[in-house]
């Protein structure tokens, strides 16, 4: 579980609370602070965004978060890398289901374009300011967002030909 006890209760980075997960630093900005925190991270040396993904916490709402952060259905997770300091930083932002939009990082890192499209395709989270928010992995006219927890895996029951049916 997230080691809340190992950190001082008010540790924060760039104005957002920090937690540690298995020794990895995680910062939790709110949606409003998101872009400002990322800009400060870039200034602090985190020049590369190696990953941008999302998690649907529909069936696991009771996870641990720092105090002051309200758990929402979706969480957008970024992994930043500092080439000079050789460290990583994780950023987790809560995104509510009712208004599943968040600012796009495209202007900060153009490399997040495909990753944000994938999050939109798989979860339905929209990114404001993204130049081309269309489906990337599924066909364009696909309905539904496959990685959501209320989307069935689509398993077909396998029937054996040799069975007496």
């Amino acid at each position, binding site marked *: 579980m997230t080691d809340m006890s190992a950190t001082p209760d008010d540790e924060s980075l760039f104005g957002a609370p920090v937690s540690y997960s298995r020794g990895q630093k995680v910062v939790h900005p709110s949606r409003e602070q998101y872009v400002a925190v990322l800009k400060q991270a870039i200034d602090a040396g985190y020049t590369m965004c190696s990953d941008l993904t999302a998690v649907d916490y529909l069936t696991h709402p009771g996870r641990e978060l720092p105090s002051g952060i309200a758990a929402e259905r979706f969480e957008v997770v970024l992994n930043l890398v500092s080439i000079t300091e050789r460290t990583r930083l994780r950023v987790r932002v809560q995104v509510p289901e009712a208004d599943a939009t968040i600012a796009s990082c495209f202007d900060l890192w153009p490399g997040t374009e495909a990753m944000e499209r994938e999050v939109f395709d798989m979860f339905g989270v929209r990114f404001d300011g993204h130049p081309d928010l269309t489906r990337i992995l599924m066909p364009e006219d*696909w309905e539904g967002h496959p990685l959501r927890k209320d989307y069935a895996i689509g*398993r077909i029951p396998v029937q054996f030909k040799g069975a007496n049916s």
Partner: protein
Amino acid sequence: MSVIRNVLDDGLGGIQHNFLTGKIEDLVKWSRSRSSWGATFGLACCAIEMMGTGGAHYDIARFGMEVFRASPRQADILIVAGRVSQKMAPVLRQVYDQMMEPKWVISMGVCASSGGMFNNYAIVQGVDQVVPVDVYAPGCPPTPETLIHAIETLHQKIEDGELMRRRRETGAGAEIHVTEIAAENSPVTLGATRGGVTV
């Protein structure tokens, strides 16, 4: 006149055979089986094993298939190597439709044969939902020996002529299942028996 119409409709199989045309038809089937060209439809991991089969160790050139034509117009055998996703299925059908008769399909690997380990929303559960399949080669991925076994099975059926007759009647493929040959440490030598199968 009727002779010409028969030939146009059914190819050499439509000729009322005397011993001379019988021999010609055998010659045609013999040469078809020994110089069939594959269409490149390598999708995923099975494509790597397919390329390995074309490499120097397993060498399907000795079976006449070293040429993989990208243009479906020039290809005979469509080896569907890899998992077919929902987005790729129309493309597969298009490529199959563009191939000229006679054409055959080998479904290489479990993902192409039945959806494999990916029983979910994204993968077509078996390419026989999209194209008629003649030989299913199991394995994940099938070893080059298995693929050669599947290709040789297909070649044998082409030479016997059984495949073309069946297709005309039902429109389905031959749907032959071959057994998987486990990988072994030494490469296949021509004429060797491996797993009960002489390659």
